[in-house]
Each structure stands twice: as C-alpha cells, then as structure tokens.
C-alpha cells in the first residue's frame, strides 16, 4: 500500500547530506518569504485582493480571453488556441518549421514542461536551449525541473561543477558558483546570438491591454525576446488578469512569495511584436476548462506559480520534486494532478500530504490547497477494491460501540505480535522506522468505569 511517491523519494533523494541540503535550501525560501511579507504592511490585504481578482477573472474568463485576444491582435500579435498538449506542440512546431527555424532559445515555462514541448521539437530536429540557469542545468543533466521556480534546487554545486566539466568549458573540480555561472553565461551567449526564434512562457496576460508579462531574475527571457525575429509565447488560459491595476497587486505578491524579493530583477511587459518581428501567443487549455467547470476545484486555477506552497510543504522538502512524477510537484501539483494528470499514480497525488495546512496559509492568492486535497480524495483518487473493503469494514466496526470495544480488546491481545517481524505483518512498513508504542494497558473507557466504581469525584 506504500505509495509510489514514498518509494521514489527514497531512491531519488536518499537520506543523508543531500536530503538535509534540499530541505534547508527550500525552507530558506520559505523564511525569505516570511521576512519579505512581514516587511510589506499590506501583505494580507494584497492576498485578499489577489484572491478576489482571480475569482472574478475565472468567473468571467470567456470575456477576458476574448478581450485579451482582441487587444493583443490589435497590437500586432497573432493569437493561437491550443486545446491540449499535442495541439500546442503542433502549433509551435509548425510556426518554427514554416520559417525554417532550427535553433530556439527558450526561457522557463512550466506549461511547456507540462506539455512536453522540448522533446517534441527535439525529435523533429529543432535544437531547444533553455536559457534560465537552473533550467539549463536540468536540461544538460537530461532531467525535468524539480521545483517550479528553482528547477535545479535538488542539485548541489558539486553536481553542477561535475556536469559543467562534462558539458561546458569548465575545469574539473570547479565548484565556485560565480565561476560556474560565468561559464553558463558564456555558453548561453552564443546560443542567444545564433537563435532563430525565442519561446517564452508568461506570468500574466493583461486583458485590458493585450500585454504579456514575463518575470525573471536573469533577464534571459528579455534577451531571448529581443534578438530573434520570432517570439512564441505559450501560456495557460488561467494566466489572465483583467487590467494593469490588478497586475500591480500580483507583482507585489509574486516575488515576495517566491523568493522573498520585493520584486523580480526583470519584469517585462510585451505588447505586440517589435518592428520587423513576429509575436505569436498560444493560449493553452490542456484540462483547464475541465477544472474551470468544477465549482469547487476551479480556485486552483488562480495559482500564479510562485512555489511558496512547495517551499513550506514538509513532504515536498523531504521528497524532492522528481518523486512526484508530475511536471508540477508539491501541494499545487497534487491539487492539479487529478485534473491535468494522465496516470493513475498522478491522480493519487492528493494523498501525498499530511494536511498540515501550511500550503493554504502561504498561498498568495489564498487557494484552499489542503481542503482541495481532501475534496479530491473523496471524489477522484482511485481507490482499490481492498482499500474500499477495508474502509467499509472499519466503519462498520466503529459505528458499533460493542464491535469497537471487541476490536480494541483483540488489538491488545495481538499487540506483542505486531512488533515482531513476520511476513504479511500489516504494521511492517510503519515499523521500519518506528518502534511500536508501548502496550497501553486497559482502554480509557475501562479505566473510566473503574474510576467511577471507586467513587472518584
């Protein structure tokens, strides 16, 4: 019954210094968020505004999507609609192929990870170079991002030094972050200059003005958008915000929640193409309208991908992002997986939470993440016949005080047996890391009866 995530975590993020470093690095982001949020007196009011703005936008998404399309088109962009991942991949490939583009620079986009755009293009002879440093690290290592804003947070500087020594022009044994970054910068500069096209995501799309908003700390998206003649932006339908005034609120929340910065280093607003260039915007559904139709779960579409829920999540920090087996890990990934995921294991991700509620407490748009997880468990998580049978049996026992007492007595008898190793011991997995609690003696109710007989009080 042990979940795949538990087994994968043991393998992908083994206990020891690597696990300690991962937990510490990710929790440091949570602490920076606390400090930045505390320094902003309006933080809680901003969260409430952002929640309401997202709720309003999602309630009227049809209107805002049409308005965005009209304004972006008027500004000279060409808007495409992709129903699902294959459609996005086809549209992007066609745009590149029609113009003979062979080399593409791409800035970080969780949507293209979700849709598998890179492998699709690469298998068709197009070279895609991710230009975000963390994203480039995982790309060179042939692995997916493990965090939605810190793609290589599972990697140590020693890992990266070894990787760069193999893949880039770096002497073996180099672990200095500044020198490694400089090597990546030189390597990427050549790709920027030779690129035929740039692919970016977008953090927000402003309906009022038809503007795309791209937020980075490295300026890689900006450089990519500024050099080649073709810019393709891929974004999920939920990225819409009504106007620039709303954008101001989201920008104040995004970087503070993500990294504890008051604002990211680069915030670029793109309205229409540059002169002599093309701007294509692909709006992607890929399961989002299904979520939108679900009254309870549509709130999850308000996510601005800041990563705060990952950073605070005790499970994510001990599992690492890869163990989730879904493009978006952590609490928000577990909330989106039943709607956007494909496999049964992905649909079981809502179980991967202690329900401590810290995710809900940090979310800048106040998505009730842990409540969403509870709700998915009741409706969409696949439960096996054995699980269902056990639940029915347990409920039948617990619904009868007499059966319940009998079960308690039986458990007391078998107690010593449970602590021993034997094939099929139902407590074996739990006891791998724990000792069985000491035998509790008589139950409370038995002692209460005795206490009453003895006339206490």
């Amino acid at each position, binding site marked *: 019954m042990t979940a795949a995530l538990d087994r994968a975590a043991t393998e992908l993020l083994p206990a020891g210094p690597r696990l300690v470093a991962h937990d510490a690095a990710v929790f440091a982001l949570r602490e920076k968020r*606390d400090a930045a949020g505390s320094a902003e007196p309006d*933080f809680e009011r901003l969260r409430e505004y952002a929640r309401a703005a997202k709720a309003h936008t999602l309630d009227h998404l049809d209107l805002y999507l049409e308005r965005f399309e009209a304004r972006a088109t008027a500004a000279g962009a060409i808007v495409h609609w992709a129903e699902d991942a294959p459609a996005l991949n086809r549209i992007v490939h066609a745009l590149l192929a029609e113009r003979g583009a062979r080399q593409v620079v791409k800035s970080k986009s969780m949507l293209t990870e979700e849709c598998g755009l890179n492998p699709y293009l690469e298998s068709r002879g197009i070279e895609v170079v991710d230009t975000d440093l963390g994203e480039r690290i995982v790309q060179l290592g042939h692995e997916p991002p493990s965090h939605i804003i810190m793609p290589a947070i599972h990697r140590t500087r020693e890992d990266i030094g070894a990787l760069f020594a193999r893949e880039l022009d770096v002497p073996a044994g180099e672990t200095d972050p500044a020198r490694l970054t400089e090597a990546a910068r030189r390597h990427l500069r050549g790709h920027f200059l030779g690129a035929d096209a740039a692919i970016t995501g977008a953090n927000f799309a402003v309906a009022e003005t038809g503007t795309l908003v791209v937020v980075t700390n490295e300026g890689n998206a900006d450089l990519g958008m500024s050099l080649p003649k073709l810019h393709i932006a891929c974004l999920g339908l939920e990225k819409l915000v009504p106007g620039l005034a709303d954008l101001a609120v989201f920008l104040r929340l995004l970087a503070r929640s993500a990294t504890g910065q008051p604002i990211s280093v680069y915030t670029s607003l793109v309205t229409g193409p540059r002169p002599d260039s093309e701007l294509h915007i692909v709006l992607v559904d890929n399961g989002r309208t299904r979520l939108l139709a679900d009254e309870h779960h549509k709130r999850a579409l308000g996510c601005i991908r800041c990563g705060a829920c990952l950073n605070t999540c*005790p499970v994510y920090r001990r599992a690492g992002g890869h163990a989730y087996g879904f493009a978006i890990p952590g609490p928000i990934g577990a909330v989106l997986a039943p709607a956007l995921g494909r496999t049964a294991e992905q649909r079981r991700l809502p179980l991967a939470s202690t*329900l401590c509620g*810290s995710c809900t407490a*940090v979310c800048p748009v106040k998505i009730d993440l842990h409540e969403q997880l509870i709700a998915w468990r009741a409706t969409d998580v696949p439960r096996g016949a054995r699980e269902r049978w056990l*639940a029915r049996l347990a409920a039948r026992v617990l619904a009868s005080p007499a059966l319940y007492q009998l079960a308690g007595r039986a458990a007391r008898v078998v107690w010593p047996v449970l602590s021993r190793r034997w094939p099929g011991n139902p407590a074996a997995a739990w006891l*791998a890391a724990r000792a069985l609690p000491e035998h509790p003696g008589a139950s*409370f109710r038995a002692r209460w009866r005795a206490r009453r007989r003895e006339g206490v009080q």
Partner: protein
Amino acid sequence: MPEREAGGVKVALFIPCYVDQLAPEVGLATATVLERLGCTVSFDPRQTCCGQPFISTGARAEAVRLARAHAANFAHAEAVVCPSASCVATVRRRYAELLGAEPAAELAARTFELAEFIVSRLGTCDVGAHFPHRVALLESCHGLRELGLGQPTEQLGGDPSLLGVTERLLRGVAGLELRPIARRDECCGFGGAFSVGFPELSARIGRDRLRALAESGAEYATGTDASCLVHLDALRRREGFGPRAIHLAEILARRAPG
C-alpha cells in the same frame, strides 16, 4: 489557584478512539483537570470515532455514517471537550460538508479543544499544575491552522507577541521551563493515514522534528494531540534520542507533591 466547587459547566468528554485505545491516561488527565476547575464531567460510552480517518482517505460514505453517530451521541451535551485538536478540527471544519451547514455549526459551537476550553471558556490560564521540567511545545498543525489555537509562523501581519492558548497554559504551570524549538510549527509528519501510505517520508519529517526537540534541551515534548505525540515517541524509541512525549492534559493534571 483555588479549587473550584463542582457543579459548574457540564462537560461531555469527547475521547477520540485512538486516545481511548492507545493513550488512555490522556483521557483520565483531561477529566482530572476539568473536575479540578469545577466542571461536572461525563463520558458517554456510545462514542467511538469522529470519522477523521475516513475523511482523510476519501471514504466519504463511511465518514458521513460516523459523523452522524458522533453528532447524535453529543446532541444534548452542553459543552463537548476533547483532548485532541485534530478531532475537534474534524467536527468544526469538516462536518459541514458531511452533515450540512446548520447541524454542523450547532455542534461545532459546543465543541472545544481542551486548551481553548480552559482559557477561552473557563477564562483561566492557571489550573494549579506543577511540573518542574524543561518542556518543548510540539505545535499541532490542526490546532494551529484549523482551530486558531495560536498564530502559525506563515501568518504575517499579526501581533507575534500574542501567545496561543496552549503556550499560555504552559506558562501558567509552576516550575515548568518552556524551551523554544527551531521551526516551531513544522508538521511532525504523522498525518494519520499519511504515515501508513508514506511511511518513509513521514519518518523523515518526524525525525527532523525529533532532532529539533532534542536540540532544545527539553526533557519532555508536549502538545494538544496525542496522535502527533504517539508518532514522535515511536520514532524516539527507535532512534534512541529526544525528549519523552507527554500530552498537555497530563502536564496540567500534575500537582505539587504534598
């Protein structure tokens, strides 16, 4: 603190199934403290389980069945008091979906976690307890984030000097030295069914908590949830280090000798 006359608030004990079976001394200590504070305490043996394990594993039909039974058992109680924040959170935060908003709200208004009942309802932080030991508080996630027994560290903009009810009660215990711990409100990793389905991840989280508690120099770890404490103690006994677990009610029940 003066002993109060019996006959005050009539309290119906809500003893969670796992306290009844695994930590009976927590239930007895709860009764002792409440009686010392003048409450008339009763226990209805028809109660079994509030249904939380079924809610958290998605067995909704079974959860409804147990929630109905629980509500019926406590239909006429003046105040329902429970030494488990998690089970109180089930009644207060999950029953609306299972029983309907009105019956759930009516029951929730009469259902209290022990610490909040003593501080908010009975209006005291001094229960006359004596416990001359170094103690660290293992915050309960459900107590903190679902019942608001204190202010979680993620919640910004509040007054950080405002103490939660649990901490206020501990500060009222004679001889007790409260030790701060790193990441004071990080989860212990138990999560009920989570620790069964994800035993290694649950243990990783729990071991980190155990380490923080050990580093605090505390002799005892206490909290409002016997479930978290049982989990932590199971890890402690395997790992061989860390403070012993003791429920808040057991500390509050201790008196000075003589």
